[in-house]
C-alpha cells in the first residue's frame, strides 16, 4: 500500500509524505495505542465515569496486594543476582587472561536464546520437592526425607529467572569494558595504583552506567515475567502480577470483574515499566563519559595465575548447570515411557515424538506458531520499515507522534498487550477476533513493532541523506530513489528485524496464553498446557522440538547477520 501512495506522490501537491505519515500513525494507533488506552480507560472508569475508589479497593484485595509484593520481591532478587553474575562473568571474559574467552562469551549468551519456561519445566523435573530427579537421588543417597532444594519457592523462581536474564547485564557490561579506553586504567597503573584499587576507583565507576542500564532491563523483564512463576509458583499458590492476571481471567472465563482487576494490575505494570525506562534514560544520559578508545588497543588483562584453571572450571560448571543440564533433561524426559521412571535405556522410547507429530493438537500448535511468527515477522518488518523511514528520513510535521508511539511498546509487557488486545478486538469496535488466530497475530505485531522500528531505524541512520539526494538530483523520482538506493542499503536491517521478531515469536508464551482458544494454541501454550495437565513427558517431547527449531533458527540468523557485516554504509 505504501508503494501506491509513494507513486502517486510525485506530482500532486498533497504529497505522499503526508499520506505515508498519516497511515503510519494510523497503524501504530490502532495496533499499539488503542489497546494501551483501553487498559487505562477500563482501569479507571466504570460505565464511562471516573472511579478511583474501585482501583484502590482492588489493590487492597489480599491476592492483588500479594501479587504486587511477589512481583517486586522476584524482580529485586533476580536483578540483584543477575547483575552480580553479569558483572562477574563480563569482567572475567573482558579483563582477565581466562582461556577460551570467545567460546565463553558465546556460551554465556546462550541462555538468552532459550525459552525460560522450558527451563522452568526442566528444573521442575530435576528439583521438585518429591518427584525431582536430583532431590530423589539426594534423598536416597543420604537416606533423608528432606529434599536438597525445593524449586517450588521464591528462591527457586529467582534462581531460574536469573539464569535466563543475566545476559542483559553481561552483554551491556562486556560491551562497555571492551569499548573503554585501556589507557584510563594504564595511566593509573603507571602512577603506582594497585590493581584492586584501579578496579574499585576507576573501572567500576566508569562502567557503572552500563551496569545500571543492564540491571534495569533485568528488572523490567522480571517484573512482568510470566513463564517461570507460572510453572514454579502456581503449584504453591504463589502469584505475581502476570500470573494473577492469567488466573483471574482464565478461571472466570473472561468475566468483567476479572478483566477489570487485570487492567488495574496491568496499569501498575505499565507505570513501573515506564518508570524503569525513564530511570534508564537518566542513567545513560548522566553517565555518558567519553571512555571510548581513540585507537584500538588491547586492554590490560588481569593475570589469574594459579586460579586460572579453577575459575575456568567454575565457569564451565555454571554453563553446564544453566544450559546443558536443563536442555538434556528436557530431551531425556521427552523420551521416557512414563514420567518418573529412572533414565535407563529400557525406559526410553521414541513413541512420544511420534505421538506429538501425529497428534492434532500439537500439529495445530506448531502450524499456528509457524504461521503467526512468520506472518507477524513479515508484516511487522514492513510496517517498521515504513514507520522508521518516516521517523528518520522524512521532514514532516507531527512525526514526533510516531517517535513516541514507536517506543511505547518497549514499556508495555506481553501480559498488558494481551489484555489490551482483548479489550480492543472483542467486538467493542465492531470487529470480533476473540478465539481466532488473528487476535494473537495483532498482539504479536503490537508486541514486536518496537524491535522492527529499532532495527530499521539503525539501518536507515547509516544511509546518509546525500545518497538519496544524489539519486534525486540525477532525475530519479522519490519512489525510484527509495527502491534503488535506500532499500538495497537497508535490506540487512530489514532481514535482522525479521529474525529478531521470528525467533521470540516462535516461542512466545506470555501473550498467547491469555489469547488462545480451543484451536489456536501456539507451541508455547501447548507446552505450558501439557505441563499443567501433568503430561510432563509430552510437554518435554514438544519442548525438544521447540528447542531444535530455536537452535536451528539461531544458527541461520547468525549466518545471515555475520554475512551482512560490512553491508550498509554511506556518507
Amino acid at each position: 500500500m505504501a508503494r501506491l501512495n509513494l507513486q502517486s506522490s510525485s506530482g500532486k501537491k498533497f504529497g505522499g509524505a503526508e499520506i505515508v505519515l498519516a497511515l503510519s500513525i494510523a497503524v501504530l494507533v490502532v495496533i499499539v495505542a488503542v489497546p494501551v488506552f483501553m487498559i487505562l480507560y477500563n482501569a479507571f472508569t466504570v460505565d464511562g465515569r471516573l472511579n478511583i475508589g474501585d482501583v484502590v479497593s482492588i489493590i487492597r484485595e489480599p491476592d492483588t496486594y500479594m501479587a504486587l509484593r511477589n512481583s517486586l520481591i522476584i524482580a529485586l532478587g533476580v536483578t540483584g543476582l543477575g547483575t552480580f553474575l553479569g558483572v562477574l562473568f563480563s569482567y572475567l571474559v573482558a579483563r582477565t587472561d581466562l582461556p577460551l574467552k570467545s567460546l565463553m562469551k558465546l556460551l554465556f549468551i546462550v541462555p538468552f536464546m532459550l525459552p525460560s519456561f522450558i527451563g522452568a519445566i526442566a528444573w521442575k523435573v530435576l528439583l521438585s520437592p518429591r518427584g525431582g530427579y536430583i532431590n530423589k537421588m539426594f534423598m536416597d543417597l543420604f537416606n533423608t526425607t528432606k529434599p536438597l532444594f525445593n524449586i517450588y519457592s521464591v528462591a527457586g523462581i529467582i534462581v531460574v529467572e536469573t539464569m535466563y536474564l543475566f545476559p542483559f547485564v553481561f552483554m551491556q557490561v562486556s560491551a562497555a569494558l571492551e569499548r573503554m579506553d585501556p589507557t584510563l586504567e594504564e595511566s593509573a597503573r603507571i602512577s603506582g595504583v594497585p590493581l584492586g584499587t584501579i578496579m574499585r576507583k576507576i573501572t567500576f565507576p566508569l562502567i557503572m552506567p552500563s551496569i545500571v542500564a543492564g540491571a534495569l532491563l533485568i528488572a523490567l523483564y522480571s517484573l512482568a515475567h510470566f513463564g517461570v512463576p507460572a510453572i514454579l509458583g502456581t503449584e504453591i499458590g504463589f502469584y505475581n502480577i502476570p500470573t494473577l492476571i492469567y488466573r483471574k481471567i482464565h478461571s472466570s472465563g473472561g468475566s468483567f470483574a476479572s478483566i477489570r482487576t487485570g487492567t488495574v494490575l496491568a496499569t501498575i505494570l505499565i507505570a513501573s515499566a515506564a518508570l524503569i525506562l525513564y530511570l534508564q534514560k537518566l542513567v545513560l544520559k548522566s553517565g555518558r563519559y567519553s571512555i571510548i578508545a581513540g585507537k584500538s588497543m588491547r586492554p590490560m588483562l588481569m593475570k589469574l595465575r594459579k586460579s586460572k584453571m579453577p575459575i575456568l572450571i567454575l565457569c564451565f560448571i555454571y554453563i553446564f548447570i544453566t544450559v546443558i543440564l536443563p536442555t538434556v533433561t528436557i530431551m531425556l524426559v521427552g523420551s521416557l515411557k512414563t514420567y518418573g521412571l529412572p533414565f535407563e535405556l529400557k525406559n526410553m522410547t521414541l513413541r512420544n515424538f511420534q505421538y506429538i507429530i501425529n497428534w492434532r493438537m500439537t500439529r495445530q500448535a506448531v502450524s499456528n506458531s509457524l504461521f503467526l511468527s512468520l506472518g507477524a515477522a513479515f508484516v511487522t518488518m514492513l510496517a517498521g520499515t515504513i514507520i522508521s523511514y518516516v521517523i528518520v528520513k522524512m521532514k514532516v510535521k507531527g512525526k514526533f507522534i510516531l517517535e513516541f508511539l514507536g517506543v511505547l511498546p518497549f514499556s508495555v509487557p506481553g501480559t498488558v498487550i494481551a489484555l489490551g488486545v482483548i479489550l480492543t478486538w472483542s467486538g467493542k469496535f465492531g470487529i470480533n477476533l476473540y478465539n481466532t488466530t488473528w487476535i494473537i497475530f495483532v498482539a504479536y505485531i503490537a508486541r514486536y513493532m518496537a524491535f522492527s522500528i529499532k532495527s530499521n531505524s539503525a539501518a536507515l541512520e547509516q544511509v546518509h541523506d546525500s545518497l538519496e539526494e544524489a539519486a534525486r538530483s540525477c532525475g530519479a523520482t522519490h519512489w525510484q530513489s527509495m527502491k534503488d538506493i535506500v532499500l538495497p542499503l537497508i535490506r540487512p536491517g530489514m532481514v535482522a528485524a525479521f529474525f529478531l521478531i521470528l525467533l521470540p515469536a516462535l516461542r512466545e508464551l506470555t501473550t498467547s496464553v491469555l489469547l488462545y482458544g480451543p484451536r489456536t494454541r501456539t507451541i508455547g501454550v501447548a507446552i505450558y498446557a501439557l505441563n499443567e495437565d501433568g503430561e510432563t513427558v509430552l510437554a518435554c517431547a514438544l519442548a525438544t522440538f521447540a528447542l531444535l527449531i530455536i537452535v536451528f533458527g539461531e544458527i541461520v540468523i547468525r549466518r545471515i547477520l555475520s554475512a551482512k557485516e560490512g553491508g550498509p554504509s554511506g556518507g
Partner: protein
Amino acid sequence: MVDNIRLIDVTKRFGEVTAVNRLNLEIKQGECFSFLGPSGCGKTTTLRMLAGFEDLDEGEMYVGDTLVSSSVKKYYLPPEKRGFGMVFQAFAVWPHMNVYENVAFPLRVKKISREEVDRRTREALANTRLAGLERSFPGELSGGQQQRIALARAIALNPRVLLLDEPLSNLDPHNRESMRFEIKDLQRQLGVTILFVTHDQSEAMALSDRMLVMKDGVVQQVDTPVNIYYNPANRFVFSFIGLSNFVPVEMADGKVHVGGAKDAGFIGKQTQIDKSVFSSHKAVAAFRPSDVVFGETGSIGGKIVRRTFLGELVDYKVKVGEHDIRVQKNRRDVQLKEGDTCRMDFRRILWYER
C-alpha cells in the same frame, strides 16, 4: 649510581610482524630523548615495553642497576612499581574525577600524609598552570587543559622517568606549539629524564637532547637533532626529517648533471661529489629546498613553474629537464615570478645510489 636507562637486544614480535628488532640503547639520566618514526615503526611498542605494559620476546631493560624487564628470566617489574610517570595520547584523564582528584588520586594511594598529598598536588597544578581549575571536571575543559592534567598527574609523583606517548598529537596546532615549550621548561626545572614518542619531527627537534629515528622496528640513527638533520645516516632519515629533494643525476666526463638535462648545466665545482655511489654513471642527489641558492652565475638552469607564498617563506617549483626541484627562500631574498628562468647552485648535497 645514575639512573641511566639501558635497553639490551630488545625484540618484540606481534605474530609474524617484528615490531622492534634487537634494539640497543642507553639513555642518560636527565636527558630528553625522543623516538621518531612513521606510524607502526615500533616506537610506541618500545615505550610500552619500558612502561611494563608489554612483555619482551628477547632482551633486557635496566633502569640504573635495577633490572625491570627480562625475557630470559621471565621477570617483569609491574608498571605500578617502576616509579615512572606517563602521559598518553588520548589524555587518559579520569572523567569521573575533578582536576584536583585526578592529580591527587595516585598520591593518596601511596602512604603519604594528607598535607603532603595536598602540597604536591597544588605544586603540580601550579607548575602546569592549572591552579584555579581544581574543581572542574575534565569534560568541561579543553584538550590542552586535559593534557595538562595528565602532565600534572605524572609529575606530582616525582618520577625518575617521564614517558610521553604522542602527548601533543591530539591537540590543535596552537596548543601543540605552546605545550611543546612548557614541557621543555618543566623538564629543565625538574631535571627529570623524558622519553618521548612522536611522529612529528619538529616536535622531536624542539624537545630532544637526542633522538632516535626508527623504521619497521629497526633503528636508523641515534643522535642529536642537529646531527640528524645535517648528517642523516641514510636516505630514509634524510627524507623523513625536514623537506628534501631527491633528483636523479648522471655523470658525464667526470661532471654531474641533472638526469636527462645535460643542457641545463653541470653541478658546480664547489660542491663535493661522492663518486663512490655512482653506478653506470647514475646516482641521486639529495638536498634541502633551503640549500638551493638562486644567482646569475648559478651552474644549473631551470624555469619557475609555480610560486607559492607561505608567509615568511616563498616556495618555488623549478623545472630542470623532466625533473622538479623544490626551493624555499625568504620572501625578501628573491623576486622571481612564475615563468621566469633562473640559475641555481647548491650549498650542500648528499649523494645516494640510484
